């Protein structure tokens, strides 16, 4: 039977060839460990592992890419599904109503500044765990790979929108834009939490 130390060696070897997400490594580690256990050749473990990794390196990297793509698609499907749930549709109308009410009492630029600050805070909250894991070199799950692009999509146009909005005549259009961005960001935060909980339940019991 393969020891805990040998399992760690397999895990490290996978990390080394670019299989970075923990959920993918769990499955590949078990596959390699079982394959090496079944190998009846009387050779040292390290030698067998090295041989396996060299022979299957390209295939493992290909699997890694495919896994990441599949979990990215799943994460976006979940995000889309959440968008069309009653609670998030209600949230959209509530957000728009709030922005509209603010615009009745404040200048458009002040309203958009408030909305932009809201976007920044939400996006920071959404990105926090990912950035923290990256800095602390903590393991993260493969779905985070795909969802990180949503932040970029929502924040960058919003920065430029602060100056573009002066050329847009309609107040409603500007408010609608900011409402949609805040709404998508909130749904992303919730989706990330849901997926984290799902993965935690699966792998940590």
């Amino acid at each position: 039977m393969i020891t805990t130390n040998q399992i760690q060696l397999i895990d490290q070897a996978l990390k080394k060839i670019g299989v970075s997400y923990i959920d993918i490594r769990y499955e590949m580690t078990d596959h390699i460990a079982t394959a090496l256990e079944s190998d009846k050749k009387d050779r040292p473990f390290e030698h067998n592992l090295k041989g396996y990794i060299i022979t299957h390196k390209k295939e493992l990297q290909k699997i890694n890419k495919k896994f990441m793509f599949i979990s990215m698609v799943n994460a976006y499907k979940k995000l889309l599904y959440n968008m069309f749930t009653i609670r998030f549709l209600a949230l959209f109308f509530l957000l728009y109503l709030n922005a509209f009410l603010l615009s009745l009492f404040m200048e458009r630029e002040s309203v958009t500044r408030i909305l932009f600050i809201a976007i920044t805070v939400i996006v920071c909250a959404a990105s926090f765990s990912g950035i923290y894991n990256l800095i602390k070199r903590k393991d993260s799950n493969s779905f985070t790979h795909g969802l990180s692009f949503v932040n970029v999509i929502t924040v960058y146009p919003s920065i430029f929108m602060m100056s573009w909005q002066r050329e847009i005549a309609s107040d409603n259009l500007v408010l609608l834009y900011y409402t949609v961005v805040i709404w998508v960001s909130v749904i992303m935060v919730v989706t990330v939490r849901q997926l984290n909980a799902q993965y935690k339940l699966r792998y940590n019991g």
Partner: protein
Amino acid sequence: MKNSQLYKGSLNTIIMKLLEENGRMYGYEITQKVKLITAGELNITEGALYPALHKLEAEGLLDVEVEKVDNRLRKYYKLTESGQKETVNRLAELEEFIRNMQNLVTPKQNPDLQF
């Protein structure tokens, strides 16, 4: 996988059939079972198997159970309710395909079809 172009289209059905028979299985077990049944003729590679399993899981046809076995985590796959129904459909489709191919490859002598 041996003769991959011919087998590729049937991989999902092979996986689903094995899960239907065995209840739940993990990746390596599936590769070994296929090898055993086909007497080593068909070798499903990790590169073909795992993406197929993940796609079937994403489609809601497979369910996943993770268990600690020895000193590592093992991911078991099993058919969902819709997966079981889909297996029946896909097997029927595959059997029909095999029958048609059989007829095409080794046509029986039929006097009605003689020109």
